């Protein structure tokens, strides 16, 4: 017979479950209601809708590109934020949260005024032949701006919590800061970084307002799934819901794929 130690743990985490259940229900019921309200035939119709596949493809490609940009540039930025103790960096950290608070539509306007034809960078971009608004790159850019803060904050906290002593030991073993970053810091911060990446990616996938303003709504060019869903909402609510469920299914699929990476490569979980 195994020890009964487990029982006690169960009991005290049961408390967590009881206290957490209201929030779980509040989060779960709307999705559940959506599943109930969309008939299977509607879901099928949504799948066959010409807008759907195109938009789904656009969503996957644009959010993937956005995530690559966020990870590539956001990881060093978060690291710098975690390690710098200057007042400037505190302020920068704060400023980087602001796109979360702004209504996405306003972020979209800001993007137009920064990177649009008559925006701050407009002439510069035009000079190198770049015309961002109403293009696929605009979709990616909008997603980057909306999603990056979520990654940055999670990653900064993860880096800040990392054990500095282990980095020191790795230095005494002759490894350069870059080597240490990849072989010690990243693995130690794995969980926090992954959580941040997940939040950012989910947010990018669901991005709507900034894309609408900055990239517009053009099927096949800039119409991501959320935009397609919003367009459909104007004409057929139940079709839009069905399409949302397909978006969820797509997300679950991608999440399940990502879960494989979240697992410790060597099997352990701590």
């Amino acid at each position, binding site marked *: 017979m195994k020890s009964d130690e487990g029982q006690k743990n169960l009991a005290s985490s049961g408390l967590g479950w009881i206290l957490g259940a209201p929030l779980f229900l509040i989060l779960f019921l709307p999705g559940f209601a959506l599943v109930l309200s969309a008939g299977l035939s509607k879901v099928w119709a949504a799948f066959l809708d010409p807008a759907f596949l195109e938009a789904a493809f656009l969503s996957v490609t644009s959010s993937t590109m956005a995530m690559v940009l966020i990870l590539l540039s956001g990881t060093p930025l978060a690291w710098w934020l975690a390690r710098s103790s200057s007042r400037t960096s505190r302020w920068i950290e704060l400023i980087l949260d602001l796109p979360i608070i702004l209504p996405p539509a306003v972020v979209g306007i800001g993007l137009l005024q920064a990177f649009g034809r008559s925006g701050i960078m407009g002439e510069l971009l035009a000079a190198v032949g770049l015309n961002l608004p109403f293009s696929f790159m605009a979709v990616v850019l909008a997603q980057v701006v909306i999603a990056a803060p979520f990654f940055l904050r999670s990653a900064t906290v993860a880096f800040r919590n990392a054990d500095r002593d282990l980095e020191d030991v790795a230095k005494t073993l*002759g490894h350069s800061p870059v080597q240490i970053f990849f072989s010690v810091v990243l693995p130690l911060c794995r969980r926090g970084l992954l959580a941040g990446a997940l939040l950012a990616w989910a947010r990018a996938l669901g991005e709507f307002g900034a894309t609408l303003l900055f990239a517009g709504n053009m099927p096949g060019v800039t119409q991501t799934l959320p935009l397609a869903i919003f367009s459909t909402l104007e004409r057929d609510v139940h079709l839009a819901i069905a399409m949302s469920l397909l978006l969820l299914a797509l997300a679950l699929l991608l999440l399940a794929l990502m879960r494989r990476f979240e697992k410790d490569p060597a099997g352990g979980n701590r």
Partner: protein
Amino acid sequence: MNCWEVQIECLKGDFHLQVELSGGLRPLALIGANGSGKSTILRGVLGLETLERAFVRVGDHILHDSNKSRYVPVEDRNLAYLPQGLGLFPHMNVAENILFADRSNTLTLAELIDGEHSTTIENLKIKPLLHRRPEELSAGECQKVALARVMIQKPQLVLLDEPASALDILARREVRKVLSEQLSDLGIPSILVTHDFRDVRDLAADIAYLKEGKVEKAGSVDDFPGAEADEFLNEFFAQP
């Protein structure tokens, strides 16, 4: 000429460390009460502490000279270090932890087991542990792994912070033997922090006695008479 010399001044809260030390090929044993600054000295030599003033030379290399604004980064110093907290990487298994110390980055697991380091692995009895994570080891086993990580290096200077504190008595004896052989065979100088007289004796080490951040007395074992006025030294040498 001495193999290495160190002058360090360091402030940590109320604690003020100011020492000058040097050593030849013989190991130097740093002894002293808890909190007298032993670990801080090692970390200072490594470049891990913020120092008020420092001059660190190891072999022909000046690693730190605050007067001339010279500071060799930690990773370029080529010193082997066993920290008091062991510093094993939780995300690597034992073999990876040890191989991580290979500066040439060419050593493989097979070579570790069969090559020149096989006796180290053998003597420390860690062969069956190679595939485990640090969290799956006992405290003494962890210390053995940390020791193995030091021993596969070929540094300019070895720094050991109480390397045997968690080991059982047989392992301690073994480690003393292996260390004294290996260090003198390869001609590598070392600094060793210890509370155990047997380490000093078996390694034939010189002694620096640290008291509240200052070197109170230094010399070979023979320079310390049997009965001392200092209670700490008295007790220390009263060990077998």
